[in-house]
């Protein structure tokens, strides 16, 4: 099922949480709502679920073309996983997962045996079989999260919504769990929307990333397209490290048609910069190596421009290249930008 929202507004008193937001989420895809805190992403998710109402008269929410703006939460058939799981603390894992089935009216409620069957199936799916009789308090954070997921899936939702699904977990569990979620998505192919403020998380597992900022959607696209072709300086800076290079600079090939007027800015990712030594004869932005941090797969260098010593440029090169050039702090280098970006509207003062 596809999810479509159009021209949504949501205000809390003076505060605008969503400002004319429109979005179409295609069927069966895993979509990330990515943005800093306060960008409106959780509000958007809660409105899609029906836990919040948009401002009266503003826009609509459609599931597969059908307007559900007036449909109450329980009838929307969404599975919602809360940031802090919201498991029923007095119920066992089994009863938590079975809850959505046992509250159905008699006519549509599955038999006890069917419920048991389905709960066991789901617990196997989330790799928690054998935990049926535990209470939520007897589980780890990652296990609770998976119980919450199984509970949401039990009602066979049309749409799965996850609010910061890994936010409360420690870094290691987080990484495992997000790969696992991606795998799970491959298996069930449910239209899934999850909220996150972690760009790495969004880029790694989502089919589609929706970048939000200040109550608006900045950009929508595949992880590669938003990373490689950011639509705004905000997206550029939010998705990974970026250097802001004041122009003019000698670091560009002459083929790059940049607006070189003084005061304009070019955005360059650290891994899109080549380093050469001055005697190589190649042109480039003259800089001095200030600091080298080489613990890890790539070496991170901090360089200062010779023409503007206060402007620092981060560069990432392979450790092999670092050894070839024999760089140390203080070495004079030439920086050559392989790729850079300039935004038409970005007039600096």
């Amino acid at each position, binding site marked *: 099922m596809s999810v479509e929202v159009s021209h949504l507004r949501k205000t809390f008193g003076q505060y605008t949480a969503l400002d004319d937001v429109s979005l179409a989420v295609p069927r069966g895809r895993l979509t990330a709502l990515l943005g800093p805190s306060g960008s409106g992403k959780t509000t958007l998710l809660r409105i899609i679920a029906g*836990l919040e109402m948009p401002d009266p008269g503003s826009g609509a929410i459609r599931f597969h073309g059908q307007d559900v703006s007036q449909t109450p939460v*329980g009838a929307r058939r*969404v599975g*919602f996983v809360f940031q802090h799981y*919201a498991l*029923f603390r007095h119920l066992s894992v089994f009863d938590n997962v079975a*809850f959505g089935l046992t*509250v159905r009216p008699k006519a549509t409620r599955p038999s006890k045996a069917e419920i048991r069957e389905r709960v066991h199936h789901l617990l196997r799916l989330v790799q928690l079989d054998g935990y049926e009789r535990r*209470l939520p308090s007897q589980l780890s954070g990652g296990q609770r999260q998976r119980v919450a997921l199984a509970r949401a899936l039990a*009602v066979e939702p049309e749409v799965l919504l996850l609010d910061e699904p890994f936010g409360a977990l420690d870094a290691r569990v987080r990484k495992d769990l997000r790969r696992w979620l991606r795998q799970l998505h491959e298996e069930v192919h449910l239209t899934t929307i999850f909220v996150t403020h972690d760009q790495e998380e969004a880029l790694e597992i989502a089919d589609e990333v929706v970048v939000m900022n200040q109550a608006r959607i900045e950009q929508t696209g595949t992880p590669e397209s938003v990373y490689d072709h950011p639509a705004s300086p905000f997206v550029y800076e939010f998705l990974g490290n970026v250097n802001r290079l004041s122009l003019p600079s000698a670091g560009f090939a002459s083929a790059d048609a940049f607006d070189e007027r003084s005061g304009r800015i070019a955005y360059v990712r650290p891994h899109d910069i080549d380093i050469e030594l001055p005697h190589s004869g190649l042109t480039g932005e003259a800089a001095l190596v200030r600091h080298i941090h080489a613990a890890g797969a790539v070496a991170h260098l901090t360089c200062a421009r010779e023409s503007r010593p206060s402007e620092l440029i981060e560069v990432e090169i392979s450790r092999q290249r670092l050894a070839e050039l024999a760089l140390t702090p203080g070495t004079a280098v030439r920086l050559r930008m392989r790729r850079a970006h300039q935004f038409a509207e970005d007039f600096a003062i």
Partner: protein
Amino acid sequence: MAAATTSRLARPAVLAGPRLHRDPVWLRRTLIGLALAFLALFLLLPLAAVFTEALRRGLGAYFAAFGDADALAAIRLTFLATAIAVPANLVFGVAAAWAIAKFEFPGKSVLLTLIDLPFAVSPVISGLIYVLIFGAQGWIGPWLIEHDLKVIFATPGIVLATTFVTFPFVARELIPLMQSQGNDEELAALTLGASGWQIFRRVTLPNIKWGLLYGVILCNARAMGEFGAVSVVSGHIRGETNTIPLHVEILYNEYNFVAAFAVASLLALLALLTLVLKSIVEWRARRTASESS
């Protein structure tokens, strides 16, 4: 500088324990002795006095006090008033706490103040207000007389006064508990398709059951022991509008000490039972809380 700040901040936590032990022995003994003497004088002595006086003429005289028709009527009336007031306040209290803890609405602080009103107002004044409203010279007194309805100096008045005075117990117990639990679990149940009643019965109620029981026990104890407000609306008609505390007062004023203390011992026993139940509930609640945190 940073280290100095840290150590200054840390001091109370680290030294609080050892410091107590460094107080001189005589000071510690004096303080503990004073506390124990206070406890004995104001709590244990009266309790012992009640039972001593009640049993002064032996068990026969003790039980004879309960055989009296007026005493039985007082006991019946107290149980009747409690049996109405406690369930009513259970329902009101849960409803009020649910509304206050789970929803935002205008006038919330006014409602909170109203819930506390019975605690703030002297029980005698509360009783008097009912007399002013329902009494023969009161606002709707004449209308009641016309329709041959009796509120003041009758059972309905006693039930009303008891209910009013014991209103805050359940709500006050539940509001902080429900606020601390938030409504994520209720919202989760909502997304799973549960109806309002199902959410209340299967999610909210199990989470508050120990707090609720605790509130009911306190409410019950107060309902049985209430004197001031009931005294004003009762009219002290023997065998008809006397509750246990009022009956004790009458017997005492008539110098019938054995009977007075015998009936009073019944209330004292109820209080002890309440304390035991309260401790059990507190213990269970703490255990549940530590399990689910």
